[in-house]
């Protein structure tokens, strides 16, 4: 069982939790025993079931501790299956969580949700402002993972989390793919999952970088130009992807941009292949900015990605001029791999009256 804190009232409890470094700096819902018990009950799993060990502190991520974070983050019980899956995802060895939490880079876990759970566990927004404020599930689920990383993983700024500045996605960073309107197959299907499965895919990522492109249906090079600007955003010389190379990255196409590419006959695989090709640069260019990093490369050109599949591509957001790209850290033992985790919806208990635990 988790050790209980004592306070005279919720206001005092909140201040005690702030003082103890247990929050993200914003007010939290006080995780009273009743609220936590309700959240654990809804999980359909034992409170002391271990999901794994979370670095760098090496804390045990039990269902109860994850439920505490979910309560603190303001989650509804129906959000919990996605929170648990996100925790399971970052605990996979390939995610290198302890190293990611410790780095000076700004990286934060971006949670991408696919499948029917986008609706039943939320709804998790995938349209206008999906990465901005106002979407409770997106805000709460991402925040719950962050609070796990603080209170179970032990991330404390300047002590164990050495991000020089961090970025706002370290408060919450979660969205769903707009599968209903996308011209492409759902991302999780292309990652090998069944379309009826609900899957979270998590990658440590920089803050989203806006990519502006105004389409022109009369221009035969329309799709090619869009791909070029996406590639520039994805791996320009200011990114770790261009300097360290070999990591993952994310492209979030808005519906207008997705249509331009689909109308040109490109599917996800073809788009990723082209982005992979467009991020091949002269080694001389890297040498100019980062001679030390370039010294390991013997060829005249180098590629920022090991393979097209290192890049995640999804459609989300409102329709307009702007897509988003998220470069990544590219370091750690597995070079910033994305990981996917099936969401176990069958375990969830929908208990009347506990929806607002």
């Amino acid at each position, binding site marked *: 069982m988790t050790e209980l804190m004592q306070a005279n009232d919720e206001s005092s409890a909140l201040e005690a939790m702030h003082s103890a470094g247990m929050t993200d700096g914003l007010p939290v819902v006080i995780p009273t025993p009743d609220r936590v018990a309700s959240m654990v009950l809804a999980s359909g799993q034992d409170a002391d079931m271990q999901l794994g060990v979370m*670095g*760098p*502190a*090496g804390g045990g991520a039990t269902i109860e501790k994850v439920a505490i974070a979910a309560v603190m983050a303001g989650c509804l019980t129906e959000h919990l299956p996605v929170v648990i899956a996100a925790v399971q995802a970052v605990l996979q060895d390939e995610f290198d969580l302890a190293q990611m939490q*410790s780095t000076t880079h700004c990286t934060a876990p971006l949670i991408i949700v696919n499948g029917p759970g986008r609706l039943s566990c939320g709804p998790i927004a995938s349209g206008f402002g999906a990465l901005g404020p106002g979407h409770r599930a997106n805000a709460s689920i991402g925040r719950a993972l962050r609070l796990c990383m603080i209170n179970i993983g*032990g991330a*404390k700024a*300047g*002590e*164990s989390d*050495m991000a020089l500045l961090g970025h706002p996605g370290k408060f919450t960073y979660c969205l769903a793919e707009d599968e209903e309107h996308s011209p492409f197959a759902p991302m999780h299907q292309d990652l090998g999952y069944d379309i009826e499965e609900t899957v979270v895919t998590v990658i440590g990522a920089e803050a989203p970088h806006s990519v502006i492109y105004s389409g022109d249906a009369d221009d035969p090079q329309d799709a090619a130009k869009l791909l070029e600007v996406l590639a520039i955003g994805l791996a320009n010389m200011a990114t770790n992807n261009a300097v360290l190379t070999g990591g993952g990255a994310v492209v979030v196409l808005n519906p207008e941009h997705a249509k331009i590419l689909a109308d040109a006959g490109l599917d996800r695989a073809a788009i990723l292949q082209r982005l992979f090709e467009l991020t091949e640069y002269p080694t001389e260019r890297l040498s100019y900015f980062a001679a030390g990093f370039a010294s390991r490369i013997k060829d005249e050109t180098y590629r920022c990605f090991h393979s097209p599949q290192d890049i995640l591509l999804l459609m989300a957001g409102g329709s307009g001029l702007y897509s988003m790209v998220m470069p990544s850290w590219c370091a750690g033992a597995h070079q910033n791999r994305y990981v996917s985790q099936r969401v176990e919806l069958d375990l969830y208990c929908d208990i009347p009256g506990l929806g607002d635990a």
Partner: protein
Amino acid sequence: MALVTEDFWPQGNFTADSLGMPLIPRVKLPHPLAGTGQENLHAVAKAIAPLIVEQLKND
């Protein structure tokens, strides 16, 4: 033996404690070190080499 710069000393302590090795020998380096030039790097190396040897002897 871990070489840790001043600004990362608290992280070194945190990591050592988390790994159950609070007494692991560490030598403190000035911060920043990267990008300060070959001359400075040689000077720092010369200054800390005896400290490293001393820590290893005591290990």
